[in-house]
């Protein structure tokens, strides 16, 4: 069982090599976003050291969208009928889904190492153990987001619908979080959803790890991210098992 889990993880992690151009563009986008937009906007806002705040936040947003890429992989695999092959293999279905969530998570973490290094270079590292603890939280976010992606694509069973819904979720989940702005500056109807948003907790945990301005309790954020990962992976297993068996991909 462990062998199969590692093989599924390995396969998803190796897929990273196939997306070289996508990753380079993503890194370039991150670099420009921080050095141009972040820098310019930091002169306009009252938050102290906003450039650092922004750089940490947008790294979490980048991690989120890279982790969500597993949903596009599954969507493409389904369109090529590749899902049937995976379902026919002598691998326990739960192992298959957990492996894909973990593989997708590790992959996104590896894929965002250059932006992470740039962020660390920009802000500086004050306490390595704390930074490692925060990074584990980010890894939990990656696993959870990959699980969310698997759940969505399994539920919708449609490449087009998946594209549209992920675009909509991306717009809301990033904006209704503390990725770009602190909760203190949000109206209550924004701050309430932001308080339960896993991206908020990941961003705050990362800022705490970097030793810059952060809101909330890091332990609580860690627990939220762990719960998010467990909930999304469980939902992913449930939906993948029930929805992917039976075909009907559109």
């Amino acid at each position, binding site marked *: 069982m462990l*062998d*199969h889990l590692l*093989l599924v993880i390995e*396969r998803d992690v190796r897929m990273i090599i*196939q997306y070289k151009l996508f990753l380079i563009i993503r890194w370039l986008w991150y670099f420009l976003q921080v050095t141009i937009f972040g820098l310019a906007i930091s002169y306009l806002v009252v938050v102290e050291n906003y450039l650092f705040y922004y750089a940490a936040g947008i790294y979490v947003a980048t991690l989120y969208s890279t982790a969500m890429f597993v949903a596009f992989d599954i969507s493409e*695999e389904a369109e*090529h*009928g*590749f899902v*049937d*092959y995976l*379902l*026919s*293999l*002598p*691998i*326990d*279905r739960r192992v298959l889904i957990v492996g894909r969530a973990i593989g997708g998570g590790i992959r996104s973490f590896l894929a965002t190492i250059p932006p992470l290094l740039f962020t660390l270079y920009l802000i500086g590292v004050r306490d390595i153990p704390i930074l490692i603890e925060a990074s584990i939280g980010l890894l939990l976010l990656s696993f959870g987001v990959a699980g969310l992606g698997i759940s969505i694509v399994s539920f919708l069973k449609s490449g087009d619908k998946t594209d549209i819904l992920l675009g909509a979720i991306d717009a809301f989940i990033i904006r209704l979080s503390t990725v770009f702005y602190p909760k203190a500056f949000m109206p209550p109807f924004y701050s309430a959803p932001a308080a339960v948003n896993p991206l908020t907790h990941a961003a705050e945990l990362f800022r705490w790890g970097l030793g810059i301005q952060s809101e909330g309790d890091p332990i609580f954020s860690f627990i939220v991210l762990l719960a998010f990962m467990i909930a999304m992976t469980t939902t992913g297993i449930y939906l993948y098992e029930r929805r992917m*068996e*039976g*075909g*009907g991909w559109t």
Partner: protein
Amino acid sequence: MTILQEIVFVVVNMDRDIAIKVVGLTKYYGKFLAVDHINLEIYDREIFGFLGPNGAGKSTTLLMLTTVLKPSEGTAYVYGYDIRKYPDKVRSLIGIAFQDPKLFWIHTPYEILIWHAKVCGYRGSKAREVVRDVLSMLNMWEARNKRAMELSGGMRKRVEIAKVFIQKPRVAIFDEPTAQIDVTGKHMIWDMIRGLRDEGSTIILATNELYEADILSDRIGIIYKGKIVAVGTPKELKDTIPGGDILEIQVEGGLSNGLLSRLEGYREVSKVELVDSTVKLYLNRVEELLPQILEDLIRNGVKVKSVNMREPTLDDVFMHYTGARLKEED
């Protein structure tokens, strides 16, 4: 389930000679009935041909057997394991080469098959060795590092079936294995399938190619509009057509009415026609009856100039059971 419980379960449920027992297996897609309460037994170490036109329900049945699709009703037992209750166990016994190759377009045959070999339990150099052997046998070693999207249809098909030859499962399923493959390649793959059977695998061969089904299958099941309409060895199926064999005997000077009546008197003969100097008999088991008929004619002073005999094809069998021609259906 403990190992002991599992052993007891298998012993209780497994008939020694039956590899797969299908019981009322049914699949609806919405309101469309794709597979209609199929009952079937496939014996251990046989090549079972699953013959039917496209859309008859072959692939859907196979996908249910491999636990890729969930049945709407009924079930099947693979070496005693219920596909509904023990899908993981069933998948450990079954391997399938799909009709449409399932290759992710960015991967190379070598990457695809190494990963597959590892999933099937090969490790390190053993995985590399088995992949090299199978790719070489399929004449695909040279193309091992091309991306799937750069391969021709026939090459993709070879990679797809390579998966099963690497896995060597107890039940190997080939869904139209030689579609898009050239004649030389077809013979090579047929030999490999026979070899796999000889090594101990039970083979299910889904095909709509009559010749392939005829020469390769120990038994054939004909599926039409989701139903199994006939099961038997190719010979048994052909013999079920009354007067299915045709025997043409050209004689010198024609035949007397008495001799014609004598020929009509054979139990296996359905009809006798005399056209000019050629007598045409519609019968069954021509290969057994031919010496007897010839002896009869010669004994009665008939000079035989030539003999031509034709067995019914599987297309005739298909026509007999369904009222349609397999070729027309496709």
